[in-house]
């Protein structure tokens, strides 16, 4: 057995130099202390975790410690961490990073996360793990700091990109790695070309992906683990939906992926309490809504854009401002609008102007006053967001807006403002991801997204580790509208609100029919009659039921095996 032995000779040279010059010589007490220190820092075993000894203020949960151990001892430091939302993937990554740093195996680290999480990652690594992580703000940081946190969008751009490729990183951590599922994107290419000695990919939702996406993610981490592209797709159908169909493939993937589920962790989670609040339109609001619905059976322009009618209907359930904004856009963007078209829009605008109140906003105000605590309001529309902020201010309630498009610093600032000064945070859809707000336990869904995963992400912002109270979720739905249908069918049927995300992942995977949102648009947009709509809805419902049953059987089987 030949292993190269490196002998550090710098000490010798200096030593001989000092003998020649008769000193200077060190202090005996310090000499002994130095030996004592080194004996304390020596790690005599390959196995085991040292990190917990260094982190007295952190009490990692058993599944987090187990994950860290697995990654280092059995996965050789390359893994996809795919715990369900809120189980503390950041803690797991921090533990692994700390362990490698203590053992001296890792020095230079690159951490790529969504822009909105950059500050939070640096803060947590510094405060919880005593790791001097630095948020990248100046280009010299890449070279001068050992542990750098940045957004992938910044990192892939010049001049950063070239500087990063010149660094010799020991560990690369990528948060929200499911965004790298497409191997044709610039981000994917950027990460693929990074040298990955040790590498952690963090994601909450890999299972629902197509097989192709799994292949891309695993190949990023460990090229060849699933074979080359040609052999892989010879063997597995490119469009195959579920990993579960193939035991062998599942096993292979599990060699590089760890997925802890809430149910397995044995932690007591705070409850979710869901309240649906049905709201009546005022007569003016009803008139506007009905006028929009009538468009479906009318005029030529509508047929070509069922989607617009749907959007308008949903907006009418949110605020007159959002309807107006869309109408204005439709008018401006249409080339050579016909007279009929213009008239139709104009008549709708008149109806918008007739609406003087917002029933949902009034209900919101009442609810916020009753709760008398911090509240997050989610809406899909920016116009509604702006209106609500104005409306609440009229009634002496302070609020801050939050949008996905905000720059990183602004997001941090808004979160801070909300935590310390404002009672209400009003977020649009894009704001749902990448911000942790567990100091708040009330959510108002002012309008509902049609993609259940989006809804889960909203709730996931506050229902996570660190949340000490039960989470209250208030769903607003206007009676006798498309909104009420959605709520009844989708959410009450899947019992989505009570469920935790892992179940939903599974259900959606089993539903082998693509995007739920597309189905809903088809049902509500293309149906010619009430009857057709009902039948289509029943079909969808029974498919969801089927998926749920399949999932139940699966978990029985799993329980039987273990």
């Amino acid at each position, binding site marked *: 057995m030949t292993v190269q032995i490196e002998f*550090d000779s710098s000490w010798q040279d200096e030593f001989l130099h000092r003998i020649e010059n008769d000193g200077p010589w060190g202090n005996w007490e310090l000499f002994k202390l130095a030996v004592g220190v080194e004996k304390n820092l020596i*790690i005599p075993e390959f196995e085991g975790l040292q990190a917990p000894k260094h982190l007295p203020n952190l009490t990692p949960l058993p599944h987090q410690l187990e994950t860290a151990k697995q990654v280092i001892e059995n996965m050789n430091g390359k893994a996809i961490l795919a715990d369900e939302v809120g189980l503390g993937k950041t803690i797991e990554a921090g533990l692994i990073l700390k362990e490698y740093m203590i053992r001296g195996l890792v020095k230079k680290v690159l951490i790529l996360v969504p822009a909105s999480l950059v500050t939070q990652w640096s803060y947590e690594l510094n405060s919880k793990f*005593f790791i001097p992580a630095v948020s990248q703000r100046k280009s010299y940081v890449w070279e001068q700091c050992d542990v750098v946190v940045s957004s992938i969008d910044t990192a892939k751009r010049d001049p950063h990109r070239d500087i990063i490729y010149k660094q010799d990183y020991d560990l690369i951590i990528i948060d929200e790695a499911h965004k790298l599922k497409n191997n044709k994107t610039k981000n994917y290419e950027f990460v693929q070309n990074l040298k990955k000695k040790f590498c952690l990919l963090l994601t909450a939702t890999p299972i629902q992906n197509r097989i192709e996406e799994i292949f891309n993610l695993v190949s990023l981490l460990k090229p060849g683990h699933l074979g080359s592209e040609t052999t892989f797709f010879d063997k597995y159908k490119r469009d195959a939906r579920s990993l579960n169909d193939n035991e062998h493939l599942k096993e292979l993937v599990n060699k590089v992926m760890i997925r802890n589920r809430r149910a397995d962790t044995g932690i007591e989670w705070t409850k979710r309490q869901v309240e649906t609040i049905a709201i009546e339109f005022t007569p003016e609001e009803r008139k506007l809504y009905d006028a929009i619905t009538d468009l479906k059976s009318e005029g030529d322009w509508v047929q070509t854009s069922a989607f617009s009618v749907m959007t308008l209907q949903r907006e009418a359930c949110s605020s007159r401002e959002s309807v107006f904004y869309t109408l204005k856009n439709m008018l401006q963007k249409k080339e050579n609008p016909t007279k009929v078209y213009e008239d139709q829009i104009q008549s709708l605008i008149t109806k918008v102007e007739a609406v003087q109140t917002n029933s949902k906003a009034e209900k919101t105000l009442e609810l916020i006053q009753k709760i008398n605590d911090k509240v997050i309001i989610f809406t899909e529309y920016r116009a509604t967001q702006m209106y609500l902020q104005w409306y609440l201010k009229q009634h002496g309630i302070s609020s801050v807006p939050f949008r996905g498009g905000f720059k990183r610093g602004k997001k941090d600032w808004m979160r801070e403002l909300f935590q310390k000064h404002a009672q209400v945070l009003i977020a649009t859809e894009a704001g749902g991801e990448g911000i942790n707000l567990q100091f708040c336990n009330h959510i108002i869904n002012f309008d509902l997204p049609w993609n259940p995963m989006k809804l889960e992400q909203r709730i996931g912002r506050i229902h996570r580790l660190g949340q000490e109270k039960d989470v209250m979720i208030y769903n607003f739905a206007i009676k006798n509208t498309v909104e009420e249908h959605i709520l009844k069918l989708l959410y009450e049927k899947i019992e989505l609100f009570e469920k935790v995300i892992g179940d939903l992942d599974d259900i959606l995977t089993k539903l082998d029919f693509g995007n739920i949102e597309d189905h809903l648009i088809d049902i509500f947009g293309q149906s010619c009659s009430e009857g057709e709509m009902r039948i289509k809805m029943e079909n969808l419902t029974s498919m969801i039921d089927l998926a749920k049953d399949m999932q139940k059987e699966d978990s029985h089987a799993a329980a039987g095996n273990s």
Partner: protein
Amino acid sequence: MQQLEIHNFLIRYFQANECAITENGPGYLTVQLSIELDKELMNRPFYWHYLEKTGGIANPMKLTFITNTQIAPEKIKGETIHFGSPRLHQIFQTTKKLASYIRLYENHLNGNQQTPLMPWLCMNVKISYQCDRKRDIYKSIGLQLINGQMVEDFDELLQNVQLTPKIPDYSFTLSPLVKPKSGLSRIENYLKAIIEGDDHSWAEDARKRWEQDLKLLDHFYEDIEEENESYETEKKALRDQYEPKINISFINGGLFYLTDQAV
């Protein structure tokens, strides 16, 4: 290290560096830094530079460390120190830096009898076995520079010897027959011999893991004909990840002049 060990370590460290411990209470201690240690620990070169230029009066800092938050009085404000805290590791670093090289004489009790002292070369080292994992071994070796006798656990042997930085009266040192430089290489060879005799299945296993991943990698890129940059990068990454290496690094060492009875 337990909290109490840390507390005692800090006291010994500051005393050895001639800093006054102004308070030493339950779970905390306050220390007046010396100028040297302020420069070493406080990271304020501009302040010291400014003082040197203006000739002002030096005002080194006073620090309070809380070594046990449970028993320290509540009104005490200071830095909390635990085994993982960066400050403690900074202090560890300076300990090693300030005492890398040493020369001491045995303070024997032979009175006015002429006493010969034998030269010993001492090296305390850390041996690390490293692949994608790592383990360390501590070794303290002493080499007598006249007859070439080699002793392990030399540091423990020194624990029982009275030592002093000045040669005691009525003592004389014997000139080494083995030059320090060749002494160092004797110890190096000795350590290498020990290492070679050790079990290195860890390295074999690492090479197996490496080979396996390399095979997968080759397979992944076999469809791609032309020179591929990311293939080369990945290959290098695997080398960095798995290649077994052994590092011998120095902690400290020096010359010890000891009586015949000492060893």
